Each structure stands twice: as C-alpha cells, then as structure tokens.
C-alpha cells in the first residue's frame, strides 16, 4: 500500500486547462437559446441520439433537456424536481432525467437550474430508449407543440444484412419526412450547402474527440473523467458548430503535450478502468475517489458513443454528400445501444486496446435499455476473456438511489482483486 493510500489523502487530479473552456462553450449554447427566443427564431427540444445536425442545418436552435437535467443534478436540484414529478403521478421507477425535466418545467426553473424553454416543436427518437418518445409525448402535450418522432428499428444479435438494409431505408424515409415537417412548422427550407457545412463540422468535432480518446490509450493516461464527463456535452448539443471543435483541439493539444512528456492525469497510475453507463451527475466528485487507489477511468463507452462517426461504412465523403443517408446509418449503429453480441466484442477489443485492468458497469436504475444485457456482458467478459468486472447499482440523476458508502466499499474490494491479479 502506498503512502498516499495509508494517509487516505486523495491525489490531485489534473484536469486539462483547456477543459475550463467548456463552461464558456456551454454558456454560449444557452445564450444562443435565449437569443433565439429574443429573435423569434424556431427552437426544438431534441433527445440525445437524434439528428441534431438537421436542426442546425435548417436554422432551428436545438435544446437538449437531458443536458439540462444534468445541470439540475450538478446544481443539486434534481432530487427536488424528481419528487415533484412523482407527486404528479410519475412512478419512482421511471427515468430520472425525465422526472427532473418534468419537475423543472413545473417549477419554471431557469436555465442555470436545468430549466428549459417551451420549444417550437419536439424531436424524439427511440434509438436509445422508449423513454425519449414517451417523455416528449408528455411534454408536447403539456406545451401543446408539434412532436416528430423517428422510429429506429431494433438491431439484435442475429439481424441480417438484408434486414439492416430495409431498416436503413425506413429511417432514411423518416428523416426526409422530418425535413418536410420542419419546413411545414417553421417555413425554413432545407439548404444542401448549409447541411454540408454542418455535417463537416459535426464530423470534425467527432474526429477530434476520437483523437483525444486515442491519447487515452497511452500509459499513463493523460485525461481523466474530469475532462470527458463534461467534455461530451458539445457532442450532442452542438454537433455542426465550429466553436466546440476549437475547444476539443485545445484539449487534444494539451493532452498530447502530456503524452509527449510522459505526464498522466494522475501522479501515479496503478489501475486503468473502464466505466460503462451514465455517470452520477449529482456527484461527479465521487469518481475522484478512485484516485485514492491510483485508479483512473480511461474509457467510457457513453462519452465515446456520442462521437458517432465510428461505423466504417460512414465515410467523410458520405457524410458530406449524403448526410441524410449517413445519419440513418449512424442511428442504427450507436455504440451505447449495440446488440449484446457486438457489445461483448466491442468491450473486449476496447479493454485490450486501452490496456484496461477492470470494468465498472453501472446498473443504472433509470436506464434499463443500457442495463439490460449487462449481466451477460459481465459473464462473457469474465469467463471468456478473463476481464474483471464489477456491477454497481445507482442512478444517473437521482441521488436517492446511490448508496455511496456501500458502493465505495464494493469498488475498494474490486481494486484489491485487481491488485492481487497484478501481483500474480
């Protein structure tokens, strides 16, 4: 045991200086929303996983209530909002993002508290979960605004190429229909040149993020979740804009310097972990406690997933010249909701490529689509590939569902297993 562990003192985790710029970027996003209201410009709520690029391309200001829900959690408002939603009849077992949003709307919360404005229309998709569609149905009815939902067929482990092709056709047709929907609701026309520019920006943004992730393969890892958990927000709120690309490039440059100088985010790196699932937004500091064991999370499928361009069939040329078709393809191959067989394979590859010692799996009580299959994922990783895994039960936005001490004890025991394996 190191001196640091004996003293119980947490090591300083070096967040990148560039990441400080995230606040400004996100601040500009929220200002853009306010500005859109002042100017009478159309706005839309969008769920994560939906084609936000199409909104930017058609000059509609996007707002992502999930992002706002994380703001509520970070500001310690989420529990109050969730309880307000439960008083309205929404079950304790329903998604905490959804209930946070319901409570925030009921409270007329401001943006700094995670509130959201009434939009011109809503865009949902079931690519990630059914909740997204149900959530926006609830709120579209409340606000009396139009709601377009994109139905994405569910890809399972034995889906064939033939099926995949007509799945893609179905999603593509809906995306074209969505363009007509926007035109009808806002009067804005689809501009191919603008769509191309937005697509290029989105591609570039994602590629820099993926480059940053490549640097995380290095030992020691130059970047921790202090940079990535928050750093992901521009990927799903601002894909298509140039500003976040500059931020990510600064993050990359600084991380590269660290790599070149052999400097890690931790002073000492003993254990490299993967974290599957959505973090506990109400208690991000919790993850800092890993540092007491010189452990660092070097990969999160969740934050990586939003750099969506990882399907080899989707080339830059396709994104620029056939953005709608490319989007349909991407919506069918989203990392966060891979079928079980692909998920197992992808985890195994990632563990190998990022030199990961163990995997923490968040059985998120709010995100059943993600936690479904987690037990089999764990068993396969452990039995087939000898990868240590630990499942922890908690919730992304509801602090009532995290037992801090118990979970920390579980993690400590897990780290001890990893330590023994290293000694062996």
């Amino acid at each position, binding site marked *: 045991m190191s001196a640091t562990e004996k003293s119980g003192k947490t090591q300083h985790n070096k967040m990148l200086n560039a990441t400080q710029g995230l606040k400004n970027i996100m601040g500009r996003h929220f200002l853009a929303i306010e500005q859109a209201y002042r100017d009478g410009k159309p706005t839309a709520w969008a769920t994560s996983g939906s084609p936000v690029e199409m909104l930017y391309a058609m000059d509609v200001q996007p707002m992502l209530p999930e992002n706002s829900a994380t703001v509520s959690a970070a500001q310690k408002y989420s529990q109050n909002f969730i309880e307000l939603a439960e008083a309205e009849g929404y079950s304790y077992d329903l998604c905490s993002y959804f209930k946070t949003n319901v409570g925030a709307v009921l409270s007329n919360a401001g943006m700094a508290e995670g509130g959201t404005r009434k939009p011109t229309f809503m865009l949902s998709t079931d690519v990630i979960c*059914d909740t997204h569609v149900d959530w926006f149905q609830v709120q579209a009815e409340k606000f009396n605004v139009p709601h377009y939902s994109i139905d994405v*067929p569910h890809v399972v482990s034995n889906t064939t190429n033939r099926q995949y092709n*007509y799945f893609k056709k179905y999603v593509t047709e809906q995306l074209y229909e969505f363009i007509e929907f926007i035109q009808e609701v806002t009067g804005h026309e689809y501009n191919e040149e603008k769509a191309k520019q937005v697509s290029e920006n989105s591609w570039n943004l994602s590629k820099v993020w993926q480059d940053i992730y490549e640097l995380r393969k290095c030992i020691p890892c130059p970047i921790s979740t202090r940079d990535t958990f928050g750093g992901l927000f521009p990927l799903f709120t601002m894909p298509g804009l140039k500003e976040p690309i500059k931020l990510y490039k600064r993050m990359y440059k600084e991380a590269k310097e660290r790599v070149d100088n052999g400097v890690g985010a931790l002073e000492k790196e003993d254990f490299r972990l993967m974290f599957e699932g959505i973090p506990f937004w109400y208690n991000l500091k919790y993850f800092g406690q890993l540092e007491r064991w010189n452990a660092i999370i070097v990969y999160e499928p969740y934050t990586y997933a939003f750099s969506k361009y990882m399907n080899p069939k989707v080339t830059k040329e396709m994104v620029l010249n056939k953005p709608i078709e490319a989007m349909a393809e991407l919506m069918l191959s989203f990392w966060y909701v891979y079928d079980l067989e692909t998920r197992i394979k992808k985890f195994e590859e990632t563990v190998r490529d990022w030199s990961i010692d163990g995997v923490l799996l968040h*059985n998120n009580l709010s995100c059943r689509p993600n936690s479904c*299959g987690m*037990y089999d994922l764990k068993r396969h990783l452990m039995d087939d590939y000898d990868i240590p895994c630990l499942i922890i039960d908690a919730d992304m936005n509801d602090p009532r569902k995290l037992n801090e001490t118990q979970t920390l004890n579980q993690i400590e025991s897990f780290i001890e297993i990893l330590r023994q394996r290293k000694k062996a």
Partner: protein
Amino acid sequence: MKKIGIFDSGVETPEEIIMAAGFVPFRLFGDPTIQPEKANEHIPPTHCIWTRNLLELAIAGLDEDIVGIVSSHGCDRTNREFDIWLECLNYKFMFFLNSPRKRDDVALKFFIDDLNEFKDQLQDTFNIEITNEKLKASIHKMNKIRALLREISEYRTKYMLKGSQFHALVKKIQQLPKDEALSLLEIRLKDLKASNDLIAKEMKPILITGSDIDDTEIIVLLESLGFHVIIDDLGVGTKYFWNSVNENEPPVEAIAKYHLSKPILSTKFPSYERYNVLENLAKKYEVAGVINIAQKFCEPVLYDHPYLKKKFKELGVPYLFVEMTYNRESYSQLNTRFSAFAEMI
C-alpha cells in the same frame, strides 16, 4: 403439430404467416406461481417481472413441440431481452419482428418488408413454401376466429359470461391449433345462445386496461370483490380480435394494415391515442369505472398513467391505477385498493 413460440408483450405477431408455414402459433404466457431465479442471473431484478418470468420458463424448457421463437417489438424490455433469449435458448429459428412504433404509410411499408422477411426466414429455415393461397386460407380462418370472439365478447355485456371466463377463453385460443380453436369457439357460442343463465347483475361493470394481463386469477379476484369486467383493452382480450384482415388485398400487406389499425398499444406512438379508444369503450359499455393495471416496472404504462388519470377525471369516470407484482402471493395486497374502489363507485 410443431409450434412457433410467440414472445410478445402485445399481440402484433402475424399468426397467419406461422399457420401458412404449417406451424401452430403458440403465444407464451408466464406462470405467476413461480419466482424467477435463473432469469435473475440474466436480467436485473428492477426490470419487468413478467418478462423475467417468461425467460425463467424458457430456460427451464418450453413446450417440446416448439421449434422456433418469434419476438415482436414491444417495450424496451422485450426488445433488449431478445438477445438474452438468443443467449439462453437454442432454437434454429429465432426472429425479432420489428413491428413499427409508428402507424403511418412509411411505417406500413417498413412493416410489410419485415413481415416478408419473417416469411422468408421461416421458408429458408424449415425448407418450406408459404404460398399466397396458404396465407389467404390462414387469414380467412383467423378472421372467423376473430369474428366469433367478438360475438362471444358481447355476452359479457349481456351479463351471461364472466370476464374471467372470457379471459381464459381468449388465452386458450392464443395457444390452441386454430382448427381446434375454431371448433371450441363455435361450441361456446352455441352454448351461450342456448343459455339463459345470468351472472349476478349487481356486479359493477368495469373496463380494464394496462400491461397485458395473462393471469386470469386477477380477473377472478376482481370478480370476488364485486366487479364485472364488461370490456377490456388487453392483448388477452379485445386487441386480439378488434377488427379483421382485409381478405381482398395482397395477404402480407393486409396483415400489416390489420396490425397497424388496431387500437394502439402503450408501447407505440402516439400512445396517448389509447385514451380515445378507452373513452369510447367506457361510454359504449357504460362502465362504472376504469382500472389501469401496470406490471411492476412496466414503463410504457407508467408513462401513460398520469395522462389517463387526468382525462378520465375530466370525463367524470372513476379511475384506479395499481401496480402489481407478477406473483400470486402478492395479489392479496391489491385487495384493499380494489375494495376501496368498489366502495367508491
């Protein structure tokens, strides 16, 4: 006769295609007298207990005549759990049918594609031919079954058939070979026509909706407390026979249209349209109240509940929402709430 097992949280599986392939469509139901144990090694206990129950039964071994499984796109649970079924079961035919969430023309085209794929995979796997003639014959047979069920259902309105009796009948029809089902229904209807027996008229007529209830004992419990399920909005109920397939259209297209024109399920979009159907049923059958029963963790029903509550309040129809655990031992916990509702209406 060999069977294709149906894992469906609604009733959107095209039985006609299975029949035309020479198999018996056999809907899988749970067993509320057992606890999921093996299934809990695959699915967290905070997920739908009904689907865990089905997986438990499947792991233990399904009916020996079952040669394949089809699962239809329902909620997040049935969708994601299909991969777990692939992990746990070893049938040479396992198909996930993506019955669409939406119901417009684009969705219809997609559904036709998916039904054709289902048909093709059945043909390829079992080396059989599913002809249009066979499909048309199956559609005709199923339409007769649906028409008989619609007619028999109305005997609930005449207080000559208990809700529990009807529920048990519909459940049986979803598992029997369809020729047997047809004979059974014809006999049942004949008996009802010849009968003058009335069930207690003083029972309170109610409409039930919610998660698909496959345990008739819940209906029996309601009856023991003075309720009469005069009409329902369930898969083991009216959703199974609401309308008929058009026999004059190309068969696969007609089957797709049939499923997309039924009363919408809570798992589909926009599920709030369910209310229009429920309101019409409540008015037509002059129900004294509506009971919405959600299986524990049944998200689609949980999302719809506050809206339904609001709408029924506006309509002035008493409405009760309960969450149940799919376990007979726990049913007694519902007694108090059901009894209080009976008092209220």
